[in-house]
């Protein structure tokens, strides 16, 4: 049974739904508190959920990325452990230097909550559930600062927005992984797409990367 540590900062919002999605896939979710120096015993994989950690003050994810728990997460990643950062979690990973680039204010200068189609750009990571390149996943975005900025040559794009790039991400990048592929960050919310009642189960392909 895979144990996934779901990190919680003051201002984390999507930790509960992320834990439910993880448990829906047959894993165990445990909470990792930001102030702890170590991940919970038995942690196999780490999920940094969405939200407004520290109110998005200074820069999104900036303060959270300097939390005590991040040292343990960095070591886990360096040892090849799986880490998935969703939305604010993606921002935290970029601020912590575990993924390249930065997330900036949406091109619309507004919050955008909308179902999007994500195209698989790289089928070689655990994060796309075996779907082929070009396959589409229906997953919603909901954020203020979701425009990925950086040098695409330094990133391993895994998912791109298809049919429009309202957030204004460089090369319509929705999610990237590190070179090794064990650390993944994306702005869309796969935990909102793990239930037919909510409109899509494509999120399972992404979250499943924690378990495979």
């Amino acid at each position, binding site marked *: 049974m895979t144990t996934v540590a779901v990190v919680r900062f003051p201002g984390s919002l999507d930790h509960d739904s992320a834990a439910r999605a993880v448990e829906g896939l047959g894993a165990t979710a445990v909470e990792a508190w930001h102030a702890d120096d170590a991940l919970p015993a038995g942690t196999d994989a780490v999920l940094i959920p969405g939200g407004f950690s520290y109110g998005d003050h200074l820069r999104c994810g900036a303060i959270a990325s300097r939390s005590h728990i991040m040292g343990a997460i960095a070591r886990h990643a360096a040892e090849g452990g799986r880490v998935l950062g969703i939305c604010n979690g993606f921002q935290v990973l970029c601020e912590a230097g575990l993924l390249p680039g930065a997330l900036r204010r949406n091109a619309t200068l507004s919050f955008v909550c909308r179902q999007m189609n994500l195209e698989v750009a790289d089928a070689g990571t655990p994060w796309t559930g075996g779907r082929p390149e070009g396959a589409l996943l229906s997953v919603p975005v*909901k954020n203020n600062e979701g425009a990925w900025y950086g040098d695409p040559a330094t990133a391993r794009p895994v998912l791109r927005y298809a049919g429009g790039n309202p957030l204004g991400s460089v090369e319509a990048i929705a999610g990237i992984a590190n070179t090794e592929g064990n650390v993944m960050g994306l702005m869309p919310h796969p935990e909102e797409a793990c239930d037919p009642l909510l409109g899509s189960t494509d999120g399972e392909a992404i979250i499943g990367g924690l378990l495979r």
Partner: protein
Amino acid sequence: MSSEAVPLHRRLGLTDDEAALIPELLGREPTDPELVMFSLMWSEHCSYKHSKPLLRGFPTTGPRVLQGPGENAGVIDVGDGLAVALKIESHNHPSAVEPFEGAATGVGGIVRDIMAMGARPIALLDSLRFGSLESARSRHLFTRAVAGIGHYGNCIGVPTVGGEVAFDDRYEESCLVNAMCVGVLPAGRVLRAAASGPGNALVLYGNRTGRDGIGGASVLASAELDDDEDKRPSVQVGDPFTERKLMDCSLELADAGAFVALQDLGAAGLTSSASEMASKGGVGLEIDLDLVPLRESLTPAEILVSESQERMLCVVEPGRVDEVIATCRKWDLDATVIGRVTEGDRLVARFGGEVVVDLPARLLADDAPVYGVPQDPAPAPVPLAIDGIPQPADLAGAWRDLLGHPNVGSRRWIYERYDHLVGANTVRRPGGDAAVVRLPGSARAIALATDCAERWCELDPRNGGRASVLEAARNVAAVGARPVAATDCLNFPNPEKGSTGWRLAEAIAGMAEALTALEVPIVSGNVSLYNESAQRAILPTPVVGMMGLLERADRSVGQAFVADDDVVILIGEGGRLDASEYLGRTEGAPEPVDVRREVAAIDLVIRAAEAGLLRSAHDVAGGGLGVALAESAIAGGRGARLTLASGRRDDEVLFGEGGGRFVITVRPDDIEVLMALTADLPVAVTRIGVVGGDALTVTIGDTRVSLTVAEARDAHERALPEALA
């Protein structure tokens, strides 16, 4: 008159009579802090002194009611050991002065009301009114209010799942921002404000106290707005990050059973919360103002009435104080014991070792004088002289234009700025008749909608009151849910002028009639009076927040046409152009509301939904049948061929409003079963056509009008973005 010449009590907003009453009640002259406290607690916003007698007309009880009006929010039992808390509240005057922070702090305040019941907030809705979008000022107020609601709601992680907005010149100077919040809690753990247990500790936690809103919400809400620049500094600034921590902390402590009583601090701050906690509990409270954590130096009166946001007050047994303080520290929140519960009934406050307040709490909380409002009936509404209104040469063009009107078109511009998904429980998103939110840990779901028939309330307030309730109920029924509880926000002009007092009484009477027939109690609510300026008064706007229950979250019904060959059926009949969106002005005599028939239609739709017969359902509201049909076609991406009975004229058949109608679709094979459900009901049920094709084609007698789904969608989508460009 210079401010020096005006007596203190008048500057504070008390009438001479009220000021004379205070020393009689106290047996002495009040201290300055006490006078300030009376002025706020006896203001309209806090005391409801003009509306209290009229509100008694509402039905407020029922088998599901765990808490009716009188607490921070109402609470309804929804089964499975769960209860739902709900309330709607206004923040109109602050929003007219500073729309972003006014709307944001409105959201903050209503969320704290739900938290104060021990409930976890799971949904927000907002009901908004502004002047026409042709006015730059109204565009500014509207866009900033939406930004403020999004800023606060998104940051605290409560999905904003629904609401409504309408634009009318009457709101140009006096916009309306009503925020509704719904939360979930264990049915056996309803927390209340009543303090108890002499010796128990009074703990204040959350943000530090500053000069925010000194004389704010209470003063602004009790007077008409003029160009008084002095009101500007009174608007509070919200801190949603702290509110989120407050929420997580409060729920953790509530789950641990640490609270004897819980109250949030809103209008009139510590004064209001403490006096209500004492008065409700029949106990006294002693407060040491020196212990209140401050942001800046304040006088005792300022500490007592500060409206600094994101603060909660609780009563805790002495043995659990350390636990409460430690939990607050974990969430990085200030927490301080500032007083204790005492025997007796007095509210006592000390500052610098001196007693500055010492009076029976009920004088502030309960004993504000109550006033009647003049009942001067307005003249009976005059039916529209319909022959004087030219018929459109191009009916399809008129249809398209109506879909493109800011009061009718798509609200996507708004709801994409709100996180309407957080929590992964939003089963039906904004854009439909009602939002559907799954209850955590249950197979059930709740349906939520807000509604008001303000033009009808101006012309014919008794019918307007009925219609406001029934429209909200229809929105909930259209997704297959049974209305079980309501909350209301009565937004009216000055009740002491003209026919407003009469309209208030009549609207309440009409609402009460419809609520009683629906067996839906009002469990909470709010009154906002004096919404007017020197130029004009608002339309009387009694907003109804309706909650329905779905036994199965996966059985909700949408408004989209889903399959070709489905049969389109009209439930109910009637409709006239008077006071309609198509007419575009508040004129005429609204169609009288037959409460019995409309309730029967609502019940029919719910039973048909529960029987699994409905492929789609949509209520007929603003823009009449033409708009309802177009919306179902747009949502489903398919048209329909329809035949409607002739009326006085074609545009009235297509765009007339009233009659409590629905448009539903059913599979051809299910028609017989549906018709069996409708037998013996006083409800007209008429087949009007069939789903199919890429256009809506309607035959009315010799007239044939056609609008492609693509054209309809284009006009519908462009309405708000174009009006804002």
